[in-house]
């Protein structure tokens, strides 16, 4: 019974100050259509708000979307706060406009994968299903 009722809970959050949320909404919709429960927080979230929301919502996965260029500061901060709250088991992926050369450092900080523009939503759905702990 428990396996049937368990749903993957995904938090889709947009840290930083840009207001381009179309990508985040498309991802949220695709994951919803794949049978997941997607918690959407809206724009301009601070790392503190993201970590706190993930905590209260018992998220299994967090998807971060950013197009402002502030990922190198904001993403590691989110990861640090998650660790502090005892949530190292939450899988975090990212998307948006993120230069190739920044990706290794983000992965080192704990981001599982970074997806660029043009990624098919089916790739994302598969990725989340295969990597959720």
């Amino acid at each position, binding site marked *: *019974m*428990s396996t049937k*009722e*368990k*749903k993957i*809970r995904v938090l889709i959050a947009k840290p930083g100050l840009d207001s381009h949320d179309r990508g985040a909404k498309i991802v*949220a*919709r695709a*994951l*919803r*259509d*794949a*049978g*997941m*429960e*997607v*918690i*959407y*927080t*809206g724009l301009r*979230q*601070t790392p*503190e*708000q993201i970590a*706190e*929301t993930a*905590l*209260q*919502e*018992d998220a299994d996965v967090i998807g971060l979307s950013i197009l402002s260029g502030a990922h190198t500061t904001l993403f590691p901060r989110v990861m640090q706060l998650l660790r502090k*709250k*005892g*949530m190292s088991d939450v899988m975090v992926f990212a998307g948006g406009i993120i230069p190739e050369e920044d990706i290794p450092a983000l992965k080192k900080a704990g981001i599982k994968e970074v997806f660029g523009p043009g990624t098919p939503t089916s790739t994302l759905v598969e990725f989340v299903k295969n990597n959720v702990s």
Partner: protein
Amino acid sequence: MFRGEKRAIAKIISIIENNEPQAQKIISLIYPRTGKAHIIGITGPPGAGKSTLVEKLAKELRNRKKTVGIVAVDPSSPFTGGAFLGDRVRMQDLTTDEGVYIRSMATRNHPGGLARATKDAAHVLDAAGKDVIIVETVGAGQSEVEVVKVAQTIVVVLAPGLGDDIQAIKAGQMEIGDIFVINKGDRENANKAVSDIEAALELNTEERGWKPLVLKTSALTGEGIGEFVETIEKHRTYLKQGALDTQRKATAEIELIEALKQKITQTIIQDLRQKGEWVRTTEKILAREIDPYSAADNLLKQHKAKAS
């Protein structure tokens, strides 16, 4: 969890929501510590401004030094089982307030405007020490009234321009409100909506002890929020003068009936499945050899015979 530790609250709500094997044990540990919080149900049609109003209400309660738990329900897809839970978008200012805990919940196709686990999630937040718990239903239709089984004070949120005085006379949602809030009071026609609802409530013939009140708010500008909180307090005071005991007794009965329904059907269905009787009966119904009611009678008889 009893110390209000958030990770523990989150995990326990998930266990109950997923109906994991430990769920019942946990509920039985929590139950004795519940019954302290004031549970407010917020319902109304989609787009009336429920979530925005909940944020303003919670902020005002925080100003008055109350701690707040929020369970916000949104629908699951009947096709994929997935859900888009977006109520938090309107509640961002509350996220990092230590005195507020918000949980989004998908209906998982439970009817009535709430999820099966909503009531138990409210119990968890109650046991964790929250003073006030706000339960926000899905954008509700006329007959989604299950929130009356969970909350002590029911607030129906409406907006101007949603319907005329005929809509206001209909049964269902219009009967359950202790407080009616016409939100978006900054818009034109707000006063007309208030008087339509007031006129419909005038027609109430049944004496219920509490006369439902109609308020105008604007979650956008904050207008009327103070009065809203005071009206909720007034209803709470009214409940404490005796109605709360009656309400609690009714709730206890409902909770017992639902638990029984769940357990009885589960046991009987499991038993019949094992014996193959389930498949045989379904096939008979399919072939129109028997109707479902007579079939259920037969199966019940068989089950009783076996049990005795």
